[in-house]
């Protein structure tokens, strides 16, 4: 039963990073200079994100609900120790959603206000992605101390340091990379397509660089990633595969196989998340007082049953609806009238 819930958390996280991540990435891309393509790029992003961003954002809420219902200790420990990064994340989420919607639905489309929305949307996308990475990195550092009440140790130390920052940058690069790959297939305009491909190339390089930075920065941690990876060869294989897939990715890009490019890029992200999970499994958190595992911190069985039931029944409604949503707006040959 706990296995099912962990799978649901994993699947939601993956979908949030892939779908929500490309939305965040689109905001980050809009921060970059685009010259005369600026307006056309904005239109493409509005159309690509508009119908789906709210649904894409729901995966995060799903994770929160599963955690607080199924794993209350993990949830409360997180919310206490990472209060500040969570707060930063929330501010970003609020500003970003509002700016994106306001930009599209402002009845008077004038240059100045549109510019303000775009800048807010871009900055908050960047900000939120960065904090998401910082939070992810803070889970397993062994610094969170549930009993600490001294301001620095309790509420700053868990997320402070070069390693969380490096992971934050890594997430930013991954999101921008995903968005570039994804946006290539969202436009028919040759010069925009070219721009997104060029961006994908740049961010591909940056992802590799930031990934390296994460490894280097992790040497300042209690246990560095290289030594942790060496202990677990499977993990090394997973990360190596994710990197090697770049070759396949650019092969498909050259062949103009949009769908396959997207699938390979998603596969890379899935592998990175898998590698991350395997590294610490089955622990959700590693605190200064020991690990908190999904298997020891779960709610009573009666609750878990209800949660699994709700998720399974919910999936029966949600997955077909999501599929329909994407069919109507995304897949080639979607219903047209």
């Amino acid at each position: 039963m706990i296995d099912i819930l962990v799978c649901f958390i994993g699947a939601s996280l993956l979908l949030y990073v892939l779908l929500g991540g490309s939305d965040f990435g689109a905001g980050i891309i809009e921060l970059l200079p685009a010259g005369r393509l600026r307006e056309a790029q904005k239109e493409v992003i509005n159309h690509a994100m508009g119908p789906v961003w709210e649904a894409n954002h729901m995966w995060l809420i799903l994770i929160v609900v599963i955690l607080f219902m199924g794993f209350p200790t993990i949830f409360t420990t997180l919310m206490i120790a990472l209060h500040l990064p969570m707060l930063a994340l929330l501010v970003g989420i609020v500003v970003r959603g509002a700016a994106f919607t306001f930009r599209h639905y402002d009845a008077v489309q004038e240059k100045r206000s549109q510019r303000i929305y775009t800048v807010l949307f871009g900055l908050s996308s960047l900000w939120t992605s960065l904090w998401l990475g910082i939070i992810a990195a803070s889970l397993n550092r062994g610094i969170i101390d549930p009993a600490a009440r001294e301001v620095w140790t309790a509420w700053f130390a868990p997320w402070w340091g070069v390693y969380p920052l490096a992971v934050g940058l890594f997430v930013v690069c991954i999101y921008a990379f995903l968005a570039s790959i994804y946006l290539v297939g969202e436009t028919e305009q040759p010069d925009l397509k070219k721009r997104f491909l060029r961006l994908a190339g740049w961010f591909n390089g940056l992802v590799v660089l930031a990934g390296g930075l994460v490894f280097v920065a992790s040497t300042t941690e209690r246990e560095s990633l290289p030594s942790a990876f060496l202990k677990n060869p499977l993990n090394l294989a997973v990360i190596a595969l994710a990197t090697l897939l770049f070759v396949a990715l650019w092969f498909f890009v050259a062949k103009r196989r949009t769908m396959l490019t997207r699938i390979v890029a998603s596969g890379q992200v899935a592998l990175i998340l898998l590698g991350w999970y395997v590294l610490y499994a089955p622990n959700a958190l590693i605190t200064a007082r020991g690990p908190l595992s999904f298997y020891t911190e779960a709610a009573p069985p009666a609750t878990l049953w209800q949660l699994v039931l709700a998720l399974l029944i919910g999936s029966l409604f949600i997955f077909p609806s999501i599929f329909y949503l994407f069919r109507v707006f995304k897949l080639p040959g979607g219903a047209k009238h």
Partner: protein
Amino acid sequence: MDDLVAARATMAFSLGFHIIFAAIGMTMPFLMSVAHFLYLKKKDPVYLGLTKLWMKGVAILFAVGAVSGTVLSFELGLLWPGFMQYAGPIIGMPFSWEGTAFFLEAIAIGLFLYGWDRMSPWVHWTTGLLVGVTGFVSGIFVVAANGWMNAPAGFDWVNGVAQNVDPVKAMFNRAWPHQSLHMQLAALQAVGCAVGGIHAWLYLRGVASDLNLKALRIAMVIGASASILQPFAGHIAGESVAELQPAKLAAMEGHFKTSRHAALTVGGLPDVETQTMKWGVELPGLLSLLAHRDLNAEVIGLDKYPREDWPPVLIVHVAFQVMVAIGSAMALMGVLYFWFVRRGKFPRWFLWVVVACAPLGVVAIEAGWVVTEVGRQPWIIYGLVRTKDAVTPVPGMVYHFGLFVVLYLCLAVATVWLLRRQFRTVQQKFGG
């Protein structure tokens, strides 16, 4: 401001902000669907214009509701970890169902907003209706969680630990039916009347008369009907509170001394020091009648409770009076509305009454939440866990509060500004 007060202020402020957008999200899609339906049936372009106008409102307000709702799901843990530790496994179930409904709502709204020329017209219309249905259902579920805080069920409390957890029993707690009925009607009432009031105002100013009159009629059918039904729902809620939370009822009524043939005090300010009511109009026996259907029934007063278990009497009583006064006025307005509909014409003075009622429903929703939330104090789980024991140990909560006040005030100003721009374009498009 100490950390507990700041945490409570943050929660109150976030919830008070979100509840307006939640109510709009539960009601406006229905108004939009009715207009859309009439357009598809009658092919009258005015209804199409109205549908698109309301759709833009729904899009903007839904986004604000969605992000402020996300904030709340985090804040349960950020502010009240001591509550979620116990409550998560017991009362997470309605949240999981609410999440499902809200997820479907987010999908439906994407389909409706962007699907105008991508789906057959009636499939498209259905997605719009589904936005309303899923929003309404998620509202019903989330009230179940609040109901449980008022009437905890579905577990045994053994030495400060919850055992034998039964999430189904917790979800179907005894406060859920009456709270949900009251809240859902309040959403329909407040938003229906607010939208009706705005269009009445534009109509009175001579802007786009045809469109505004049609809008007024659609919004007010829902708003006025809900206004008429609400006093009955409120009465059912009052009876349940009398049974489940006598201290809350006593605070609402400013009823200090347990007595038979208890008087209902209209207006008035409770003085906690002297335990008396000042300047109120007393109607003998009526409180006993309303609470227990018997003029001579005993109504428990605050004297049955130790002082530290009293809710803040003054706030609860004043909020309650505000809510009841508005509810009564709006019910009267609702009756008048249907009377004028039968006569076939609205006199101008009545349209001004409708305009005046536009903000009142929202005020009543806020007042009602003050009654139920402040009235539950000092408990976060009624009778079991005190709010002060559930608050986060994180210091400096006053900054957290300040941050959200500034953020939400900016958001509110921006939203109002955007809506005004929407209406101004309507004026240009549909003329005087």
